[in-house]
């Protein structure tokens, strides 16, 4: 050991066959004393949020991964100065990566579950080349003659995702097995070159330097929230036949109602926004047309009508799009609904949305007005029959009581799953949402 007593803890596979996890938060800081089994951080995997206990006692010398980062199983996440006196065996680095530059004091540790050890890290004894192997099965065939490429299924998937032909990849694994690293390396090398430039005009721009070329593209790994969003959207867009309808609404009275609500004592401690009344308007429409709050059960060939509303609110966060929902939103009095909305938004912004918040939604609102646009064709949250997009509220010339006036106007866009919602139902829902927002007084304020 170069640094006596410094031990690293590698991210373990806390599920069965998980490959990565996000460090949600650290419970310790450099300089803190830790005991064995003291919780050092909270991580989120595809399956669960769990706390990780320290495997050894000592003083935290470094946090190797920032909170909010997703890392592969086997990545060292924390270094602890154990003073070399804890008497425990070396760190249980499950699958230390080659680039962690660990001193070679440890023998390779067994991999308990999940993917195999990366090739660079195995320190595997090389094959002896003293004669043909005694195996009856053929040794790794030469490139060009073989027909079957040796690679594990996840590696095949990776190659497929990256558009890499496995036959073209130079294998580095034992017996000519193509590894994950090989595929990545190949993909990186095969990066498309800039297309041949069109003939330059006489006054040519300076030729792009190497630095320019790399700056012209950026490759962002698809993982975490982005990966989830992509999968959900593909699933939804190519399963449910979408129809989108639009309605322009005079929301002047809604804007006034929001102002009045803010002055009421029961809303003193909570933010009231037009979104609150849009939510209530949608809940009113759902109450009138329960079939909009439904989903398609392909397996059982049934339409599942929900008698409760878990109202999803699409939220743009630093990590990407998430759609947490308010459970039983239809049963909440308006002040409680306001509080629930505020809490949900706050949790989403600070990244504390729990898995339970993200599941079980029945219908969704997406507030695209905050981005300064009017309308769109939102894609359904998978498993739901409708999604309402709310555009920005802008001053528009509008015919009001027979005269041309300047009014507050917003566009509503409602997408619905045409398998279970027909044009009539979808239109009625949209119209009712619009009617409530045009005249919000009674319905919105009286109910609940």
């Amino acid at each position, binding site marked *: 050991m170069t640094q006596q007593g410094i031990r690293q803890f590698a991210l*373990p*596979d*806390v599920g*069965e066959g998980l490959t990565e996890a996000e460090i949600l938060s650290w419970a310790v800081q450099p300089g803190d004393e830790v005991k064995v089994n003291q919780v050092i951080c909270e991580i989120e995997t595809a399956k669960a949020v*769990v706390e990780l206990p320290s495997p050894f006692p000592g003083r935290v010398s470094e946090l190797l991964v920032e909170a909010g980062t997703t890392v592969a199983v086997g990545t060292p996440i924390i270094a602890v100065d154990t003073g070399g006196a804890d008497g425990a065996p070396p760190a249980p680095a499950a699958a230390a990566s080659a680039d962690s530059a660990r001193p070679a004091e440890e023998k390779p540790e067994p991999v308990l579950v999940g993917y195999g050890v990366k090739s660079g890290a195995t320190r595997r*004894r090389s094959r002896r080349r003293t004669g043909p192997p005694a*195996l009856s099965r053929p040794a790794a065939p030469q490139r060009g003659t073989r027909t079957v490429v040796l690679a594990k299924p996840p590696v095949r998937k990776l190659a497929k995702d990256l558009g890499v032909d496995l036959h073209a990849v130079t294998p580095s694994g034992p017996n000519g097995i193509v590894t994950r690293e090989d595929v990545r390396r190949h993909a990186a090398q095969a990066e498309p070159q800039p297309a041949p430039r069109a003939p330059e005009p006489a006054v040519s721009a300076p030729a792009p330097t190497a630095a320019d070329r790399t700056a012209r593209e950026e490759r962002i790994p698809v993982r975490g929230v982005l990966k989830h969003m992509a999968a959900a959207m593909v699933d939804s867009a190519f399963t449910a036949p979408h129809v989108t309808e639009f309605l322009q609404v005079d929301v002047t009275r809604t804007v006034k109602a929001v102002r009045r609500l803010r002055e009421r004592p029961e809303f003193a401690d909570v933010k009231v926004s037009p979104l609150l009344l849009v939510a209530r308007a949608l809940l009113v429409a759902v109450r009138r047309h329960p079939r909009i709050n439904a989903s398609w059960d392909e397996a059982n060939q049934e339409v599942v009508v929900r008698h409760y509303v878990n109202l999803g609110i699409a939220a743009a966060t630093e990590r990407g799009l998430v759609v947490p929902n308010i459970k039983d939103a239809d049963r909440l009095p308006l002040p409680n609904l306001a509080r629930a909305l505020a809490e949900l938004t706050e949790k989403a912004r600070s990244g504390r949305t729990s898995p*339970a918040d993200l599941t079980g939604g029945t219908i969704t609102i997406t507030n695209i007005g905050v981005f300064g646009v009017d309308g769109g064709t939102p894609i359904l949250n998978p498993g739901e029959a409708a999604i309402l997009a709310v555009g920005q509220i802008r001053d528009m010339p509008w015919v009001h009581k027979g005269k041309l006036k300047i009014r507050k106007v917003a566009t509503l866009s409602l997408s619905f799953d045409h398998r279970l919602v027909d044009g009539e139902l979808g239109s009625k829902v949209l119209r009712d949402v619009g009617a409530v927002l045009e005249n919000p007084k009674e319905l919105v304020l009286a109910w609940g």
Partner: protein
Amino acid sequence: MSDSTAREEPELVQLLTPDGEYVPHPDYPFDPTPDHVRGLYRDLVLVRRLDAEAVALQRQGELGLWASLLGQEAAQIGSGRALQPQDMAFPSYREHGVAWCRGVTHRDLLAMFRGVTNGGWDPYEHNFHLYTIVIGSQTLHATGYAMGVQRDGALGPDGTAVITYFGDGATSQGDTNEAFNYAAVNNAPVVFFCQNNQWAISEPSERQTRAPIYRRAAGFGFPGLRVDGNDVFACLAVTRDALQRAREGQGPTLIEAFTYRMGAHTTSDDPTRYRASEEAEEWRRKDPIARVRSYLVREGMADDDFFAGVDAEAEKLGEQVRTDCRALPDPAPLDIFREVYAEPHSHLDQQRAEFADYLASFEGAEGAAR
């Protein structure tokens, strides 16, 4: 059955209230001597500590998986301590407390969850069968074993009884219901011990059964009862009674130990996704260890020194579990060839030779193939 019968509150055998008050039961005698109760307390605390350490070890990458018994200690220690040495137990995969009572070491348990053995211990050494991961199939093994006991003529006041452990989820399995029926028609000396911990992974027990589980026995023609699964006195007393009935040839009994899984189903599970924290809070007040401690204090059977001593012993056990887990040897690569078949055969020999040659083809492999 009329609606009113179906909904009446099931009777629950309880000897020790959550507040630690001992209430004798006319049918289930129990003698709470100081030594006895202190011993049970020690069992409960130590097995909880073992379990907590194993969960931590899994989180540190030392175990592939662990199924925590947190909250179910009383059901397991109570029933486990009711067993006689000659009795045979068929567990599922969470019965670390029963294993403890049968003398199966934590090393044996950990080896299986670390993946360095396929089984772990000799069932006949402890009269404790291997853990069964398949849901409910051990109830059939137990029934068959019990029928064997019967045919061996090993019944009588000092005869052999069989017990099998399963959960509320297993009661939906065909195997379990077949076992009930076979045991009933053959009058087999087997006790069906169901730990109803309310959750089959994420499925609540009300989606498992319409009637209380213990009442199912009546339909098969043998007695069933519900016991407070967080009451170690009651679990011990009712299990001892049921085992004795079995021993003496009076046939099977179904015991439904009404308890709660305080932790996750396994380390791969996140219960916050499907159940409310209020529910766990309510069960926390019924904790199986707290009530024994209250009883000991109330009766003046134990002082602070005793409790501190048990806690120190638990800490030591935790450290031992940690050290032993890390020291578990990996199996030799060729072991698999002698552990699958009882006797060698030529095809297996050929595979073994090929694999040995393959291993020997690595540099510095001398002696590695063993």
